[in-house]
């Protein structure tokens, strides 16, 4: 008889339940069940269009800027603003780069590196155990967060859910004094990236995890999803307005019965492929750690370069939008992948909305990876608890942003 073992999916950005269907020592199947619920689209109905970017920032406290900018772009396009002011575009780009750094830093230090250290130390690790065992650990994580938070706070008043993008533009520009404060933290941020790189290669953390490499393989047939599918994009915010695009990407539910059979891939690995990276480089979740770290480095360099852009310091910040009835969608690269916001506006208020988050796109593949993992590990007669632990590790390594998934989970 098959029994259900329910575990809390821990070390992710909002807990969920993982249900393992077990027969004896063999794990037959895995499901993910929501523990919380939100109905963001329901609450947006009737809200004035200009209030949307601030509201949707509260979908995810880890990637609020991506939601702010995607919604701003969609609303601007719907209300006839073809191109926001240059200063606004420059500020948004800088803020999104900072958010990529912060989100990847939290993923690396809170979720992925502890997973690798658990191989090196041969025991489960987390940010608290590592902050004691590896004295540099909290310091290096702190340096990267301090850098990204400084950029966000200089532009939007605070590091957590800053107020940066509005429909029609942005709230503030960079000043010479802000630039100095950001630059002061640059050196330590770069040093932190080098320190992590050293962990991965000189201390061979990645090699040590390779004993389980097979468990972390992606399905053979994957389809890329990036907002650059039609235009070159790397770290840039580009808009493509196409309501029908939404239908190309199946919205998946948390319940495994409903997940799509197609393995979709979005996020750092998909962007790496879109930039011409090798397919072999993305087919295993352990290699995504390296890709993420490279993105952090690229984003820090891009921030350093962007600080020289005159557009950041001068010019109009925001255009007034005209009230009209229309609908548009916009997509951009959020840290965890392609994010799409769609709005239908009637008399200046939201009549209908739909938000497709990276984790919704990744979820079908995550469930596939988890089910493939339990099948393989059961065939290899791995102990049941080991299989359960590694399944949770695979989900964490893939995309821990369960908050973005919850934005539209009805009460069950």
């Amino acid at each position, binding site marked *: 008889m098959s029994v259900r073992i329910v575990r809390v999916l821990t*070390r992710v950005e909002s807990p969920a339940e993982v249900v393992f269907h077990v027969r004896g020592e063999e794990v037959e199947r895995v499901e993910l069940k929501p523990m919380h*619920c939100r109905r*963001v689209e329901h609450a947006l109905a*009737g809200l*004035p269009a200009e209030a949307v970017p601030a509201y949707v920032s509260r979908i995810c406290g880890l990637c609020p800027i991506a939601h702010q900018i995607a919604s701003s772009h969609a609303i601007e396009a719907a209300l006839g603003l073809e191109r926001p002011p240059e200063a606004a575009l420059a500020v948004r780009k800088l803020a999104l780069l900072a958010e990529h750094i912060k989100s990847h830093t939290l993923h690396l230090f809170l979720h992925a590196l502890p997973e690798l250290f658990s191989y090196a130390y041969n025991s489960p690790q987390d*940010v608290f155990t590592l902050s004691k065992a590896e004295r540099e650990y909290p310091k290096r*994580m702190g340096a990267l*967060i301090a850098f990204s938070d400084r950029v966000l706070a200089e532009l939007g008043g605070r590091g957590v859910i800053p*107020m940066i993008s509005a429909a029609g533009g942005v709230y503030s520009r960079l000043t010479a004094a802000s630039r100095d404060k950001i630059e002061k933290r640059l050196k330590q941020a770069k040093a932190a990236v080098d320190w992590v790189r050293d962990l991965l290669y000189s201390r061979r953390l990645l090699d040590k995890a390779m004993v389980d490499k097979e468990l972390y393989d992606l399905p053979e047939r994957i389809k890329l999803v990036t907002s650059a599918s039609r235009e070159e994009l790397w770290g840039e915010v580009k808009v493509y307005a196409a309501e029908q695009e939404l239908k190309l990407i199946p919205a998946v539910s948390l319940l495994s019965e409903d997940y799509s059979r197609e393995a979709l891939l979005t996020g750092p690995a998909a962007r790496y492929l879109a930039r011409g990276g090798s397919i072999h480089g993305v087919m295993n979740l352990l290699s995504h750690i390296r890709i993420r770290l490279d993105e952090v480095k690229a984003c820090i360099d891009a921030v350093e370069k962007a600080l020289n852009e005159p557009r950041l310091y001068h010019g109009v910040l925001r255009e007034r939008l005209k009230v009209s009835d229309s609908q548009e969608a916009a997509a951009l690269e959020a840290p965890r992948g392609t994010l799409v916001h769609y709005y239908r506006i009637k008399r200046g208020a939201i009549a209908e909305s739909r938000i497709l988050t990276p984790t919704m796109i990744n979820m079908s593949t995550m469930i596939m990876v988890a089910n493939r993992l339990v099948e393989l590990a059961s065939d290899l007669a791995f102990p049941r608890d080991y299989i359960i632990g590694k399944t949770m590790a695979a989900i964490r390594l893939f995309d821990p942003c369960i*908050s973005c998934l919850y934005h539209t989970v009805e009460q069950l």
Partner: protein
Amino acid sequence: MEYGERWAVIQLSGCSGCPSAVFSSPVLQDLVYSMPVAYFPMVTDSQRVLSADIAVVSGAVCKRAEEELLKRVRESCSKLVALGTCAVYGGVVSREVESAKAVPEVVEVDQVIPGCPPPEKLVGEFLIAEVSGGEFRLPSYNVCKECPRAPLRRKPPIRVRYLEPPEELQAKACFLDHETLCLGPVTRGGCGAVCIELGVPCHGCLGPPAKSYTSQLANFLSILDIQLEKSKLMQFVSRYIRVGVL
């Protein structure tokens, strides 16, 4: 140095902004790493809340399982803190899920720290008070006290025609002097008037400085001559707190 009190950090329905705030400031991080953690599923493998000295709860209660978890937390932890406006008042989640409850509607709480997100300064002061055995108090003044704009000059009834400041607004004048609604007078201070610094009127995310939002709001609205559609006004004043809830 390790402090003696064991901490539990619990997430209910919300956006993860509140718990992630503890990793957002180097000062907070230093404190956080020095505290023994009993339960913090966002970053540790803890499966069950055992006993803890202090439980910090963020998010609103939407599901029966969340309500049961919260009750278990209350039973097993000596002190319970509601962190963030979702936990304290229902926040944005209560706009989305009609049956959503704030934490104090389900269990007794020892401390609330509102804000969406809660201001780093308040979270820091609370943590320092906890580890040093000091006392933490929320500010009892309103946002106007921290506001960089000039104090309100008009006398009631104050005409209000806008929810977004008009373009010709003078940089340093009170929003209400420009016929723009601002909830600063009925909102607890502590955030440093961060929105107003950016040119955005206060939406009241920290909630009222004293108990009843609804009655304070009613008094405030009664001195205004509001020339706005009622639905737009209600959308504005109930962005973070369901009017009538308190």
